[in-house]
């Protein structure tokens, strides 16, 4: 009996996920558009965490955000404020938001505004800052703050105008195309970024900004292959939020890490987090860094895998198989393995190397626990000290206990309902 209920619920969930229509609408200011956002709110990646427990990159990003907001003048003051209890820390996921790496969002930051057209729910994400010393890796030096200000004052207003001229952008189609051009949507975003520039360039030209400013903006986007990641993520978020509380479903709706803990949420269990220690990413480190420099797994970007791309679409991105230490065939096998723990094959996201088979979509906690196969996540590696930045990229797996605990909670929930 209970099995049929679960299957029916999961079927419904998968329908909603596959029917999702993530669409880019606009750019706004966090405080004005993100629900529940205040001047003293700091959103961060992953499950809830206290200041004391935060890892280096997340602490650095918080300090940077406080300086950026003018709530503190320097690191020392910011750190004191951060620890004072006056700041309200909240997971992005509690605010329809997602953020890469540290994922820090503060009141005056510009954010992308997306909507799942099919189910009318919204999602938000900051604009990608580029590579090197950036806030999302915990850097807070003057140049970081300066760039954030530039983004607030030029990048965001200009793109907002261009978007207005262009009208809403169907991101699902764009992600689909990117997957067929060698992106997997998490560690490789070069195709997606290119597609976005191609779409927006004619409208950027038409904005009322100066030639020099337009060039600056286009160059900025062009210099950063991951620019599109900050659109893939909220696209996944608004797709998954549409199923965030469907009774009896065993499908994972959120996976996220805060640099200390990895957490998941399951559709049938609503907004509860199931957490375990964040893992160490295995992969290629940039020259000059060793495994000891690496921070545990961090960021909301794993929402990509939750919706069936990223590591799950590894077979689409042979260009980055060296991150998983192997051949194109290894990449294919990575993706094939994920079909073992997912509920459906994507109807839109397809992989050329697998004869356009849909990506494995919808992680079922029952299958994860039964097979012992954990989701494979593609991700960047942050330096453990604030402000150093990205030191590599590779592959990580969530801790098994998240899924086991969730399964136990799921059964207990059914027990209280006298269903098992």
């Amino acid at each position, binding site marked *: 009996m209970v099995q049929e209920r679960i299957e029916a619920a999961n079927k419904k969930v998968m329908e909603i996920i596959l029917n999702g229509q993530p669409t880019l609408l606009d750019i706004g200011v966090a405080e004005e558009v993100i629900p529940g956002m205040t001047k003293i709110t700091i959103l961060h990646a992953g499950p809830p965490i206290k200041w004391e427990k935060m890892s280096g990159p997340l602490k650095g990003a918080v300090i940077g955000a406080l300086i950026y907001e003018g709530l503190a003048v320097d690191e020392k003051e910011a750190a004191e404020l951060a620890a004072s209890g006056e700041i309200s820390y909240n997971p992005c996921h509690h605010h329809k938001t997602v953020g890469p790496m540290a994922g820090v969002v503060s009141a005056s930051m510009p954010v992308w505004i997306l909507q799942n057209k099919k189910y009318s729910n919204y999602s938000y994400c900051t604009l990608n800052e580029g590579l090197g010393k950036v806030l999302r890796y915990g850097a807070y030096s003057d140049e970081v703050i300066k760039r954030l200000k530039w983004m607030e004052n030029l990048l965001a207003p200009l793109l907002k105008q261009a978007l207005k001229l262009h009208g809403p952008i169907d991101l699902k189609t764009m992600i689909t195309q990117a997957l067929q051009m060698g992106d997997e949507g998490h560690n490789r975003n070069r195709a997606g970024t290119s597609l976005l520039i191609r779409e927006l360039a004619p409208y950027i030209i038409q904005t009322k900004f100066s030639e020099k400013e337009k060039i600056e903006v286009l160059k900025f986007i062009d210099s950063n292959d991951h620019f599109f990641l900050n659109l893939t993520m909220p696209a996944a978020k608004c797709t998954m939020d549409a199923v965030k509380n469907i009774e009896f479903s065993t499908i994972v709706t959120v996976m996220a890490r805060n640099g200390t803990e990895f957490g998941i949420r399951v559709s049938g269990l609503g907004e509860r987090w199931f957490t375990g220690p964040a893992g160490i990413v295995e992969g290629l480190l940039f020259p000059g860094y060793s495994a000891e420099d690496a921070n545990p797994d961090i960021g909301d970007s794993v929402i990509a895998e939750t919706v069936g791309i990223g590591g799950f679409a590894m077979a689409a991105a042979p260009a980055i198989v060296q991150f998983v230490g192997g*051949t194109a*065939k290894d990449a*294919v*096998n990575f993706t*094939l*393995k994920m*079909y*073992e723990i997912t509920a459906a094959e994507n109807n839109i996201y397809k992989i050329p190397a697998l004869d356009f088979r849909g990506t494995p979509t919808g992680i079922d906690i029952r299958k994860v626990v*039964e*097979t012992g*196969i954990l989701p494979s996540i593609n991700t960047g590696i942050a330096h453990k000290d604030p402000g150093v930045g990205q030191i590599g990229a590779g592959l990580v797996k969530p801790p098994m206990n998240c899924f086991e605990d969730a399964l136990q909670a799921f059964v207990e929930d059914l027990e209280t309902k006298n269903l098992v």
Partner: protein
Amino acid sequence: MVLKYLIRENAYYDSVTLMIITREVKKIEGVKEVIVGVGTELNKELAGNLNLLTPELQKITPNDFFISLDSVDNNIAKKAFAFVDELLSKKKAESEDYQPSTFESALKYMPDANLVLISLPGKYAAREVKKALLNDKHVMLFSDNVSLEEEMDLKNLAKQSGLLMMGPDCGTAIINHISLAFANVVRKGPIGIVGASGTGMQEVTVMIDKLGSGISQAIGTGGRDLKAEVGGIMMIESIKALQHDPLTEVMVLISKPPDKEVAKKVLSILKEGEKPSVVYFAGGDPGVIKEYGSVPGLSLEDTARKAVAITKGMPTEDFTGFTVTNIDKIIQEEAKKLKKDQRYIRGLYTGGTLCDEAMIILSALIGDIYSNVPLKPEGKLSNINRSYKHSFIDLGDDEFTRGKPHPMIDPYVRQERILSEVKDREVAIILMDFVLGFGSNSDPAGEMIPYIQKARKIAAKDGRHIYIISSVCGTEADPQSLIGQEKKLKEEGVIVMPSNAQAVRLAAAIVLSRRNSQ
């Protein structure tokens, strides 16, 4: 200037590879000149002209490959050779096929699979067998440690669905001429076999092949099928299938002595089918077999001979002798070489049914036999690691294999055992089986030979001569090749008999001849 060379004997590379090597090595900074090729006279002469010849290179033949290079220093040469090595040994990464994680997932990759071969740990096996049967797949269950209850459930389920469920503990089957798990490569032919024992089926199929005939199918049932509880479910279903199989003309059944009622049931079904049949119930009563119109087999070899005789329309005569000529002379001469104390035979077997067969034949000829798997309870060895009088050890029995590979795969246990047996002054003969075929060790004879030599030395130190008598259960088409294995043994002075039964009889004859002469 440093002159360095590299020689690979009997190595051949295609010219594409060599072209790339020449081109790439020349590109290395500091390499002055290089020559790559096979060691023909002219290539060596050319090397000489280029000042790239060394005395060592002078000696190579056209079957050898060489590279010689002149570089500014040792490091450059080292670097160049490391690079050549890499180019030559570059294996195209054998891309591994995807392996699905569960039976359900495997089904997606092969929905039209018709057989599932399961060798998982016993406690998990039943669950997977059930899934396979429910999905309409035939099953061969190699695993043991499956409970009798589970076996009954699974076999009943299989019977209801009309499916084969071979096992648990089914080590051998040949279905549609494909060897499954441990089985030999034997000819196609008119004889269909149903067997409850692995090496028993191997010996019979091999003997049939040696006699120039072949088999249609060889279906394993697992050792417990003919127990009262299971009631011969799979044997009966398999007999029925072979009775309907147009390619099967003669049927052969192999099993330990079954439960009496089950035996009657099985034999009566065999009778109904009207195909001629030979039945070997190891050590069982031949009377009941005859009663139901089947021909009883006296040994595995005899069973095979009778089955082949039937296919040729010849009379089925009991065979209890030798096919080797001059056997009496051998027996007498060999017996003379034994010392006064040397009285006993020690059987070191990897095949359980072969060990059983040996004890059955031998106990009728020379009396009590001790074993870890005795025919009668009083023959049980108190310590399985220490032989006593005539002892026969089934080294594949649970007590020896717990946590270790089967001796048909890893000969370690037998290697050790032969050394301890030979220290016993009363030992005259050591009997061994060598089982070939898929699944078995790739060179069972070769693995034993160093230990046979050691054993011989130990005995020789004591002034004793030890007889080692063996039979090789295999065919020329087996991966290990029968002739090669037999040759290796013969070269070591091991007496190789054409069947286990004959090997056992020879051992008995030598011991008896010695007894009589004293």
